């Protein structure tokens, strides 16, 4: 089991003829993901890595009715239109790689996705991987097996690089990943930490989850709230980046669009404190994550023994 993607995932790539779109396509194919079609308006009839390109989504789906996921690699200017096209054609899982998307468009797309019951991951998402089965997007690059081993730990990460980093640390410690999801570091996330956390709750193959968060926004605090309220029960380990923002003037934008400390709630201190109060183990340094995961697993095991669950 896994969340969002597995060996039955079949993919259409929007913007398949672009630099990153074509590279991701070849990486996905190499990893064994079924990429059946690409869409680039005006370039129908071409092929990228042997994958046929169509002018629109309807044609792609008519020719490949099994497609059930979409990776989006179009420029920010056309992002809203491309995602609306995918949603309008009934696709229920859309992963957006594109960065620098206007906030207004994200809010509109999220509202539309909620209305039709679709999941948007991203924008600025490095991708989703269920190791050994499938990957959607650029996650893990051309050789994902170097960092991502199959296993039972879920990962939710705002950062692409740190997602791979954590997976590699887990692998070295003998732990594997059920599914890793890059949610992006935007102000408005299509899926936030809790959205993905709720999916991991239902996944029997995931026994613990690692969250890679950072300063800015409220998504980490919402996780703490969900844990306190009992909506999330599985053991969590978190690492939060951006403590050094305490040295900087308020409202300075850091590495990601969403990484702006404005007010107390988005600060490093507040996030770490609320997560710890909720029972999430927060690592001081990223290489301590695997040890904390093991600690959570032992604790959870003894809880289960005690309460007979």
């Amino acid at each position, binding site marked *: 089991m896994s969340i969002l993607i597995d060996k039955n995932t079949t993919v259409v790539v929007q913007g398949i003829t672009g630099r*990153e779109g074509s*590279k*991701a396509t070849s990486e996905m194919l190499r990893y064994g993901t079924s990429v059946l079609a690409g869409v680039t308006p005006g370039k129908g009839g071409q092929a990228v890595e042997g994958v046929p390109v169509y002018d629109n989504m309807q044609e792609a789906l008519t020719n490949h009715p099994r497609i059930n996921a979409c990776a989006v690699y179009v420029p*920010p*200017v056309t992002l809203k239109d491309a995602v609306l096209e995918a949603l309008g054609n009934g696709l229920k899982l859309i992963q957006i790689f594109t*960065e620098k*998307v*206007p*906030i*207004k468009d994200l*809010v509109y797309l*999220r*509202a*539309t996705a909620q*209305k039709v019951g679709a999941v948007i991951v991203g924008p600025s998402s*490095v*991708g989703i991987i269920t190791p050994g089965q499938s990957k959607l997007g*650029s*996650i*893990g*690059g*051309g*050789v994902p097996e170097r*960092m991502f081993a199959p296993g039972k730990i879920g990962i939710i*990460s*705002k*950062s*692409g*690089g*740190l*997602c*791979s*980093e954590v997976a*590699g640390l887990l692998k070295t410690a003998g732990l594997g990943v059920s599914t890793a999801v890059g949610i992006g*570091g935007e*102000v*408005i*996330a299509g899926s*936030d930490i809790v959205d993905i956390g709720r999916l991991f709750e239902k996944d029997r193959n995931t026994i613990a989850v690692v969250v*890679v968060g*950072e300063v800015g926004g*409220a*998504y980490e605090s*919402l996780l703490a709230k969900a844990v306190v309220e009992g909506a999330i029960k599985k053991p969590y380990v978190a*690492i939060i*980046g*951006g*403590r*050094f*923002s305490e*040295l*900087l003037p308020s409202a300075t934008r*850091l*590495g*990601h669009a969403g*990484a702006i400390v404005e007010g107390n709630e988005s600060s490093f201190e507040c996030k770490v404190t609320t997560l710890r109060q909720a029972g999430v183990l927060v690592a*001081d*340094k*990223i*290489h301590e994550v695997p040890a904390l995961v093991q600690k959570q697993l032992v604790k959870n095991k003894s809880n289960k023994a005690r309460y007979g669950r």
Partner: protein
Amino acid sequence: MKLYEFEGKQLLARGGILTPLGDIIHRDSEAALKRFTADEVILKAQMLEGKRGKNGYIFSPGDWSEVQAKTQQWFKSQKVASVLIEEKLKKSEEYYVSCLYNTIPRQAEVVFSAYGGTDIEELSQKFPKAIVRLPIDALEGLAPWQARQLVKDGGLESADIVRVADILVRLYNIYNKYDCRVAEINPLIKTVDGELIAADAKIELDDNALFRLPVGLLPDRLPTEENPREKAAKEIDSFDYRGSAGSTYIDLPGDIGVLASGGGASMMAMDMLIGAGGRPANFTEYSGNPPRSKVKRLTEIVLSKPNLKGLWIVGATANFTDIFETLMGVVEGLRSSTVATKIPIVIRRAGPRDEEAFAMLRKIKKDEGFDLYLFGNETSIGKSAEVMVEKTKK
């Protein structure tokens, strides 16, 4: 992009919201608006920082010589771009209206308070019930009836309900049309004559949407206070859309130059360096697989800060950034710098083509005399930070 008050007021006026009669005094110009007497006007320094009232950047002159004196005094600060001279409004009420994105429901919301004029943060702490909020359904927008309901909930009565709600709808339309992140009027003044006038405007545009702002509306302004490295770093991305490099660059008081990669990893790397006792000379970041020319330029900018004792090139495990190409960019930057051979350089990188990259770096270390310390992801970011700090102590 934050707008100056006068630019914000121009947007409000375009959207049909009244603003005070006023004029701009530039550094090289005389005060205008002499159809008023000096005690009928107010002077407001145009700067991007808040709390101008508390910091003495809003002034009521007694005569025209005071106007001139105050203007000249303010212009000594580079933060003051110009001075707005405006008619003084005779107010009977002050309201607060704004539109912004709330990242928890991930929607836009409009906010109203019948107690404007003070800082809204202060107000929300002291009288949270005096502020009413309404989330906006992105597919529906803001309907007038919703705005009327909101302002009545906020305590307005009789005709004010209709008139203030109308301002709220106009403000939301401006916010939406021009891709604002924040559009705030505080205070919205009701004059003794019953007119509703925006006495201030705090507007921030979404940087990601500047490309679709109507032609001519994008403020054409000269950077005033940015330091030369911050400015040069920002310019890197403006000439080339591929990947990003230097869009965030901040000078810090330390002595270790930092060239970090990845939006998230760069922040975590800074935490590690400071945790290891290091003092970063800057924060900056490149990501999204930029071409080597961009990384070269950013390397040069980082190295241009005086008195560096070391350079730390750091990132997590890249997914799609080409490590060979980007580290070639670093090497080209090192070659064009005069200090690069004199300081220890610690590199911690991993990802696509990293083996080729490290083979190249080992050769360059041998052939060109750079003091390089090379680590892949078998060494943690934290450990490489410790090595960097240790090397700068020697």
